[in-house]
């Protein structure tokens, strides 16, 4: 891969990696009396590894000029592998955290393995590690194909991909060491946040520059979603993480906001992270890979435009529904609730658009597990957006909030929508990227599909039951107006559901491991090149892009 870079680009990469190493060293020395020292050391090791990789190939010959007639796919290939590695890590920690609730002794008396540290390691590993790498890889693929243009240079995609993974590593290793700013989904501290700003601006610039080189007159709608994702995540990240560090050698920072303003900013961030990271970005994925795999154009292009603007402008106002019955002004809560309910319209427009695309291709859904992944994703997208609008209603929220129902809702979205559409996209992308006729094993794709579906269903049903029972037990009063159940009684009632959830999560993890093995074998051991005769495999194998 490094031999594909020009000699100048290798030098630029070396300088960049050297600068990162120096910054890490400075941070480590300044924070030598703090846990920050470990983070500095991690940056130095990361930078040094990149430098070593570059130095080993520094004198390789210049790449052929003909590379400019091809798309630049090396970072996408690397991103696919990283996506699956993060999936295994994040989902493994998720199963562990789930088991911890049923069997609390599973921390083994280690501080780093306490629930409060493992839980953000799970959310960050899955959302940012798995989801983020999948988004970067697929967005770079989609923008090149729909623009008919090669990426503008070969250094910045690597900077974005590696820099982003450095951020994820800093975040997760920081949690284990006890570093957190205690804002849900924004736990990394100031130095990691600043680094992500640099990486994200580079990502935005890379995307804009590719679009500027496009040969198609119109920007395909999937790119609109990816652009909204990149732009809004930048805004959210910068505003929510405005903070003043205690000192340059201290990991701790204090938020620029206080009290209810801080809570409002955090949930404006938190909900729009769901909107633009976990929804808009993955809708971009869906609007390209679903039509591609089904070999049918999207049902209605105009509907996709309307739902794009609907989602983009309505979501921004919905965050305050996380703060029902708090010190937040009542009208702000009502505003959030109203916009959440209206949001159902563009959300269901997207889900319906996806499912109607499959009309006339249901035989392909039956035969092809990859397309089935995407179909199930669209169904879960419709289900969980309905549930989201429903839970945002103040009266419903009084029952559901702080219960496992919320956890079930989040996982219906994360497992059923985000992960399913990602696996569908990766199984479409992997054979195309490594010029294979198909995946190593279609059977293993089936195995993965059923593990994922069974795991999701067990998980979501366990959490629905558990959450509603929990909510009802907390609000049951006896004749004299006292609470009927103590908190510990509700906890005992949850125990079987927590075991069921662990089992569901375990199924999902097994599926991801099978998928990783299948992708690995496709890369390594499937010798069949793309344009070989295919009749030896029967005529019914699924088609892949590029054929």
């Amino acid at each position, binding site marked *: 891969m490094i031999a594909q870079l020009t000699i100048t680009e290798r030098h630029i990469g070396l300088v960049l990696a050297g600068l990162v190493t120096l910054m890490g060293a400075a941070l480590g020395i300044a924070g030598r009396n703090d846990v920050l020292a470990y983070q500095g050391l991690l940056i130095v090791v990361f930078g040094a590894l990149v430098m070593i990789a570059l130095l080993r190939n520094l004198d390789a010959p210049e790449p052929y000029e003909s590379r400019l007639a091809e798309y630049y796919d090396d970072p996408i290939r690397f991103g696919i592998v990283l996506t699956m590695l993060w999936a295994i890590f994040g989902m493994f920690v998720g199963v562990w955290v789930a088991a911890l609730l049923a069997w609390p002794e599973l921390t083994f008396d280690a501080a780093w393995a306490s629930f409060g540290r493992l839980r953000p390691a799970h959310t960050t590993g899955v959302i940012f590690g798995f989801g983020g790498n999948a988004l970067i890889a697929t967005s770079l693929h989609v923008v090149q194909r*729909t623009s008919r243009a*090669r990426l503008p240079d070969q250094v910045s995609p690597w900077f974005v991909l590696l820099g982003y993974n450095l951020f994820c590593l800093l975040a997760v290793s920081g949690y284990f060491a006890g570093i957190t700013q205690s804002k849900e989904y924004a736990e990394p501290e100031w130095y990691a946040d600043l680094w992500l700003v640099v990486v994200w601006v580079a990502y935005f610039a890379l995307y804009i520059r590719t679009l500027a080189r496009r040969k198609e*007159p119109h920007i395909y709608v999937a790119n609109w979603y990816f652009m909204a994702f990149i732009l809004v995540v930048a805004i959210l990240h910068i505003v929510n993480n405005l903070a003043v560090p205690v000192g340059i050698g201290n990991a701790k920072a204090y938020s620029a906001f206080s009290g209810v303003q801080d809570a409002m900013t955090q949930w404006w961030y938190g909900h729009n992270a769901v909107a633009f990271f976990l929804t808009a970005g993955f809708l971009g994925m869906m609007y390209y890979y679903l039509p591609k795999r089904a070999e049918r154009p999207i049902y209605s292009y105009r509907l996709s435009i309307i739902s794009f603007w609907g989602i983009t402008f309505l979501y921004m106002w919905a965050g305050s529904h996380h703060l029902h019955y708090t010190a937040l002004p009542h009208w702000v809560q009502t505003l959030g609730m109203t916009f959440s309910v209206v949001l159902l319209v563009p959300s269901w427009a997207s889900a319906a658009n996806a499912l109607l695309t499959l009309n006339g291709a249901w035989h392909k859904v039956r035969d092809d597990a990859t397309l089935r992944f995407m179909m199930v994703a669209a169904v879960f997208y419709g289900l969980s957006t309905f549930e989201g609008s429903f839970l945002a209603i103040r009266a419903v929220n009084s029952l559901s909030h702080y219960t496992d129902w919320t956890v079930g809702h989040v996982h219906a979205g994360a497992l059923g929508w985000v992960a399913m559409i990602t696996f569908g996209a990766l199984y479409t992308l992997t054979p*195309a990227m490594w010029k294979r006729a198909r995946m190593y094993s279609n059977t293993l794709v089936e195995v993965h599909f059923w593990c994922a579906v069974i795991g999701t269903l067990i998980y979501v049903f366990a959490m629905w039951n558990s959450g509603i029972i929990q909510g009802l037990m907390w609000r049951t009063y006896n004749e004299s107006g006292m609470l009927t159940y103590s908190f510990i009684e509700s906890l005992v009632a949850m125990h079987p559901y927590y075991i069921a959830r662990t089992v569901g999560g375990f199924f999902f993890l097994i599926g991801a491991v099978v998928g990783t093995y299948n992708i690995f074998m496709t890369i390594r051991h499937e010798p069949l090149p793309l344009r070989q005769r295919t009749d030896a495999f029967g005529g019914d194998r699924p088609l892949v892009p*590029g054929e």
Partner: protein
Amino acid sequence: MDIGHDTLVALAKSWGLFYLIALSIGVLAYTFWPGNRKRFARAKLIVLDKEDRPWR
């Protein structure tokens, strides 16, 4: 100037409302503008193209 609760509510109920209505009209006009019909019809199909090289 001190922006109080009432000012914010008035702003949300008037300008906030108008801006969202204007935006919806704008989006619908763009979507159904007859001149855009051809480029949307074309964009819908570019995904299915099997060629895998950038255009020079």
